[in-house]
């Protein structure tokens, strides 16, 4: 009895979940025929102004969305950022905008194994999805950038991506309507690099994924997940140990792990150690969100795994053995039934992607 009491006082066991009665009903109605529909919705209209963007979240995401004090997520900034996100002037050959690699119809990835920049230049890593990056704690596969405002400028200046200097980008925007007026209206000053970053980051913060069958299930709608997917969730949280890394509303610990993908890869990419110079960080890459995972193939930082079935196989064998492999990885000895269930669960993470609010 005392044991029970102690356990209760530490607060009872258990697994995630919530019931959002009214919202669930609405979500269930809206998604009943199209739970896996590739959809991008946006709050309309996004009028310029100083009012904060509507505090609205897809099911499963926190109301609290971190943002820096000097860049509140207000409609005017978001609107400008969205336009910039689609602006091909920001690449050297005017062929690429952010959206060309972060395609809404692919959950803001590009479907390629490796990123392709201007003039067909190929990057060493795959394009990660940028859904729910508002809750990110570091950016890029190796976490080398600490803030979203700093991150959004990096692809512009990267030679393998858009290959423009910030000065050049600012110059181009100053010469192109409606940017001079839009920047002045939004920030009260001429186009500049910092505000370019603010606008892009503010928009990226509004790219959200939630309201998936998984969310509906954990918020109290038992029928939202198939029996297979429910079994997969149990494995995910239990024997398969996926929650060692894929945790929380965004299904990532925002930490770095060595699963061995890099081991033997071409080109050799040592990951996080290049940022920290700590030997133990060799081969570590940031845990990606699993939201929209069905739509973000191919997988891993190098796009080396084509399908979810193969991803599950990879983890079933404990990843790739290497001197720095994460200790949470081990052979799982999953049955084919287990694997099918896990993949069914992963597919249930496809929800509704929204931007602009």
């Amino acid at each position: 009895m005392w044991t029970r009491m102690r356990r209760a006082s530490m607060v009872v066991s258990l697994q995630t979940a919530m019931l959002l009665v009214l919202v669930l009903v609405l979500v269930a109605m809206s998604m009943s025929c199209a739970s896996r529909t590739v959809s991008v919705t946006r709050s309309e209209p996004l009028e310029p102004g100083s009012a904060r963007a509507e505090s609205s979240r897809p099911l499963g995401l926190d109301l609290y969305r971190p943002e820096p004090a000097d860049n509140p997520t207000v409609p005017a900034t978001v609107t400008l950022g969205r336009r910039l996100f689609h602006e091909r002037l920001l690449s050297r050959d005017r062929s690429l905008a952010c959206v060309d690699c972060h395609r809404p119809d692919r959950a803001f990835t590009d479907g390629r194994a490796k990123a392709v920049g201007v003039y067909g230049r190929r990057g060493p890593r795959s394009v990660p999805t940028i859904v729910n990056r508002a809750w990110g704690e570091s950016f890029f596969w190796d976490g080398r950038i600490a803030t979203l405002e700093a991150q959004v400028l990096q692809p512009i200046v990267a030679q393998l991506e858009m290959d423009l200097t910030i000065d050049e980008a600012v110059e181009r925007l100053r010469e192109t309507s409606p940017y001079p007026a839009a920047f002045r209206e939004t920030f009260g000053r001429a186009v500049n690099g910092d505000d370019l970053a603010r606008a892009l980051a503010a928009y990226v913060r509004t790219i959200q994924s939630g309201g998936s069958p998984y969310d509906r299930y954990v918020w109290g709608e038992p029928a939202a997940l198939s029996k297979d997917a429910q079994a997969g969730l149990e494995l995910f949280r239990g024997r398969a140990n996926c929650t060692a890394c894929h945790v929380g509303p965004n299904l990532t610990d925002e930490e770095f792990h060595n699963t061995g993908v890099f081991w033997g890869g071409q080109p050799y990419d040592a990951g996080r150690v290049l940022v920290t110079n700590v030997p133990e960080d060799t081969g570590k890459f940031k845990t990606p969100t699993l939201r929209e995972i069905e739509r973000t193939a191919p997988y891993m930082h190098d796009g080396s795994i084509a399908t979810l079935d193969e991803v599950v196989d990879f983890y079933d064998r404990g990843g790739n053995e290497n001197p720095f492999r994460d200790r949470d990885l081990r052979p799982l000895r999953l049955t084919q039934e287990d694997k099918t269930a896990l993949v069914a669960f992963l597919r249930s993470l496809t929800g509704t992607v929204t931007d602009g609010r």
Partner: protein
Amino acid sequence: MNRMLRMHRTFVAGSVVCGALVLTGGAHLASTQGLQTADAVLGAAIHQDDAEGNLDAAIEGYKQFLAQYGDDRPLAVQALLRLGQAYETLGRPEARDAYERVLRDYADQPEPVAAVRARLAALEVEPTSPSAALHTELLWPEARGVNPGDVSPDGNLATYTDWEDLGNLAIRDFATGESRRLTSTADGGSGENGGNFATWSRISPDGEQVLYTWNRSSPVGETGELRLVPVHGNRTEPRTVWSPADGSSAAVQDWFPSGDRVVAVVNASDHSSIVTVSTVDGQVRQVRSIDWARNPQVRVSPDGRFLAYSRSASREVPEKDIFLVAVDGSSETLIVQHAANDELVAWSLDGQQLLFNSDRSGQPGLWAQRVQDAEPAGEPQLLVANLDVGTGVGLTRDGTLHYPVNVSRRRMKVAELDMKTGRLLRQPVAVTDRFVGGNTEGVFSPDGETLAFVSVRPGGTQRTIVLRSLKTGRERDLPHEFQQVYDFRWRPDGDRLTVRGRDVGPGPYSPLDVNVATGEARRLTDMTGRSLAQPTFTPDGTQILHRNRDTNPERDLIYSYRVADGFVHALPGVFPGERFSLSPDGQWIAQTVRGFEVAELTPASLNATTEIRLHPTMGADVDVLWTTDDREPFGRWTTWTPDGTALLVLKKEPQAGDYMWRLWVVPVDGTDPVATELVYEPSDGGSTPVQVHPDGMRIVYSEGGEFTQFWAVHNLALDESAAPSSP
């Protein structure tokens, strides 16, 4: 009686102490002789005052004395002094009248007059009443088996989970000292998949309702839903406000001032989420999730706009800070940041300050941080030094803070038994006088020279492993702390311990191999399994038997992990879900199996009794060593004697309206169990097994339970200029 007033009374009483002693003696003498002398009357009043603590009776006695013997000026002035003190203690204004009468009528007696002037001066400083001084008050001296919930706004009632009543929600009336049930269907958590019981509870702002977390069993384990029950209602069915998906649990945290919404924390296996829930329609909003924090304490600001909560700043840091998040999610601010551990306690009534418990001064203390526009304003102020309120229970509308104090009577003891006759050859003695109350899980080394045990140090949450030489009594702390340590066992070589535990910081519970020379701990297997319980090496060291705790009872089995290649297989036929012990030769597994759990698997055995079973590790028929018709007669563990001829078990037996536990020796050859002379109250709910020394006679065990005291600290000086006080 509070500390300040005790002090006052001691001071004033000093001048009359000799006389009082004489008078008290006189009272007894007088009463035995049937006489009514001045001495006897005053002595009887003083006896009521000092010995009985019955101030009302004492006041009447002093008044009687003054009425009858007011002419006896030396005694009358003492009676007036005492009368004033008694009134002062009770916070009654008549105290001033009594003191002023001394000044008016006894101005010729300098000592009493000086004492009275001092008291009147003090009353000027404390113009409202003596109770305006900071003081603590013990409201419920010994609450057994409770988890505190909340205090009512008027401070008269407190909710709690009553584990002496199977986990029902109950409420205590401090004025009458009576408790009553608010729910009636708890089963102590012993039912299928977890059972039914209450945990967290909070009383509504109007004091009329209690919102609580009700844990109910479900196919995938306990589910914690939010329920409402009237405070004053009788036999009213609770109303379910929100029932989350099976296997999820919401811990009630606080009410919004509007009384139509509450805040709760949903604890998942991988993170916690702060949510608000409408008590009207169950609508839920997810405000803030934290990957690494378990069950942060959350309190709603008096204006209902913000949620204060405590958590560590990151998963690498165990010490907590205090944050403020807007209810609409629009902002979050770090309010209290310090390397020490800061636990949120409450908002001040005006919403201007956050009260928190912190060890930043080296000792626990109650602190306050002023908050302005959702930002910290100024430095934290120490309100009360050397007071550990934990996370508190609640703040009443007059600003009194209620808090629980856990008191442990736990002692780890060694005794010597004749295993054949059950006689105590040597009476139990305490093992150590260091950190008394915090030691448990004693286990003898294979050579019999060392006792290893786990020690929880005051104020700490980490566990230290201690090695005590049985020859010299010298103790050595291993230089490594653990967040938790269970299932303590020596390896046969005596160089290492096998434990199920967790290093400091987040991570799964794992079988750990602890080097007793260095304290270094490493994982024993590559099986990450937070559910791996009771890791037990076979005598040849080739396998680790363990229980795989799982919400699915079909998988909650005893498994063998082969060290050489990691091959895992379930032991056939061994009953799932029970603590097991492996015989010294590795051939047998012993378990206590409760009948109603048997019934879950085999309905035909619905009426089965509780059994002590013996099962061969290689599979064969089960031997039942002992069967009883009681539901839970035995402790949950069995311990083998070193020669493998018998098992030790605890068995419940009635004693003085309650029950105690007696240690029994159960021979495995099927002969009758032997009752030993050792009867005791096991600590830790009886979850820690008795361990036997290799000599087969000495045993080590932990006895003495814990209880909770309910305290209140009155008149907190929520003012930046106030100097810290000590209760």
